[in-house]
């Protein structure tokens, strides 16, 4: 199962033995991971272990050096001119929100649907307002990003990604840049989406969230997946020494 390419019917993303280097530094050392339809995977691991790099390979922000990534059974690896088509289906939310500061909250959400998908202004606006309600910040549609709190900005960023109706949501440490009191409001939104059946891959250090929301937890260290287990098993302590050590460290503070 480690080496040969096996398409599994439930998987929407299948990564097989992918490798990625930055110059001499190998950051992903043959990583294999399946992301199942409608499931939520939480990826944990120490800083520099390659978590961000892994999920950035899924939406082709990074191009892998070896291995394959299948999306709905079709290979997406390799830098082609059609990378943007893959990104239509795989959305991403970033640690630092990365809202466009010259646009209002609503314009942030509607821009890509309008210019990429060609959706009409009225339709995009209507949908955008619904999404703002969904992420629980109605009435902020005309605010600019720097008039919003961090938690509000991240929820706008989530709405902006949802507006493209991707089949998979990738979150790269969505709450790491937030003040503690704002973490919950963002995690609640991600949890709700996950429970509604949005396929999600979440890189996070929030273990409580992982326990509540994840179907599987993946532990990465030094560019490898050390553990990939159902959530219950992962937290029951039935895991490798390295994973146990990491868990102890992160839960103790």
């Amino acid at each position: 199962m480690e080496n040969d390419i096996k398409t599994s019917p439930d998987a929407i993303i299948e990564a097989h033995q992918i490798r990625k280097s930055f110059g001499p530094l190998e950051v992903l050392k043959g990583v294999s991971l399946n992301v199942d339809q409608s499931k939520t995977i939480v990826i944990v691991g120490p800083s520099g272990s390659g978590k961000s790099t892994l999920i950035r390979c899924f939406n082709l922000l990074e191009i892998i050096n070896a291995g394959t990534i299948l999306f709905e059974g079709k290979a997406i690896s390799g830098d082609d001119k059609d990378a943007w088509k893959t990104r239509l289906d795989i959305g991403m939310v970033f640690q630092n929100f990365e809202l466009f500061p010259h646009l209002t909250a609503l314009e942030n959400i509607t821009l890509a649907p309008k210019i990429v998908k060609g959706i009409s202004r009225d339709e995009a606006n209507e949908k955008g307002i619904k999404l703002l309600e969904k992420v629980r910040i109605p009435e902020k549609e005309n605010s600019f990003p720097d008039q919003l709190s961090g938690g509000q900005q991240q929820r706008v960023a989530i709405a902006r990604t949802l507006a493209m109706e991707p089949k998979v949501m990738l979150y790269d440490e969505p709450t790491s840049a937030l003040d503690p009191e704002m973490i919950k409001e963002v995690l609640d939104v991600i949890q709700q989406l996950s429970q509604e059946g949005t396929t999600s891959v979440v890189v996070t250090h929030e273990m409580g969230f992982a326990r509540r929301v994840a179907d599987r937890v993946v532990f990465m260290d030094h560019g490898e997946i050390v553990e990939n287990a159902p959530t219950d098993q992962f937290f029951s302590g039935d895991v490798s020494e390295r994973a146990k050590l990491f868990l102890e460290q992160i839960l103790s503070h």
Partner: protein
Amino acid sequence: MDALDLTLEYITSDIFFRGAQMTLLLTIISVFFGIVVGLIIAVCQEINNKALNYIVVIYLWFFRGTPVLFQIIFVYNVLPQFGIELSSFSSGVVALALNEGAYIAEIMRAGLQSVGKGQRTAATALAMREWQVMRYIVLPQALRVIIPPIGNQFIGMLKLSALVSVVAVEELLLVANQAASSNFRYLEALMAAGVYYLAFTTVFMFIQRHIEIWAKGSRKRDLANVDVDTLNSTEHMETR
């Protein structure tokens, strides 16, 4: 004839008026092509191509490292030896625009780089293609940084344009100088030219001031319908 009368006569005379027109024309055309050249250079600097990067470095080295007067005389007198023969007006514009481009490139680069990498990545992740990222994310923000200093370049160019009198373009300073040398009434001729220069720079400054206000405050309108708690949280940026 007393000084004031003669000055007024010069200001309203056809020849001074045409000289002023020529100065204004030189300024606007040179800055315009300077912007085009600057944009090309800025883009070449962003592109990862060794040959292009080298050409740009040499270009900047030459045009920033030699006097503009040298460049004007060079274009007018040396280029014909290589088969490129330009009128004195065209020579002036070419030299001024090429020189201007070297400086505007720097302004453009600062503008383009004012838009963080994270935003470009976010736009890319939203399935925008490279030109869309440029058009909808980078340029609108870069323009707010680029446009105000370009106002300064207009004012600078207005003064620089006097240098093309050296290749006998009938611009304001040459006209004034010629008028004065026929009757030695330098005070009056220079006052007349000075009035035109100051009038132009005043208008440019006025326009520039308004553009700066636009660049800084084009969002004020939106603050009108913001509620109190967001206003408090944004106080830090409003009191800057």
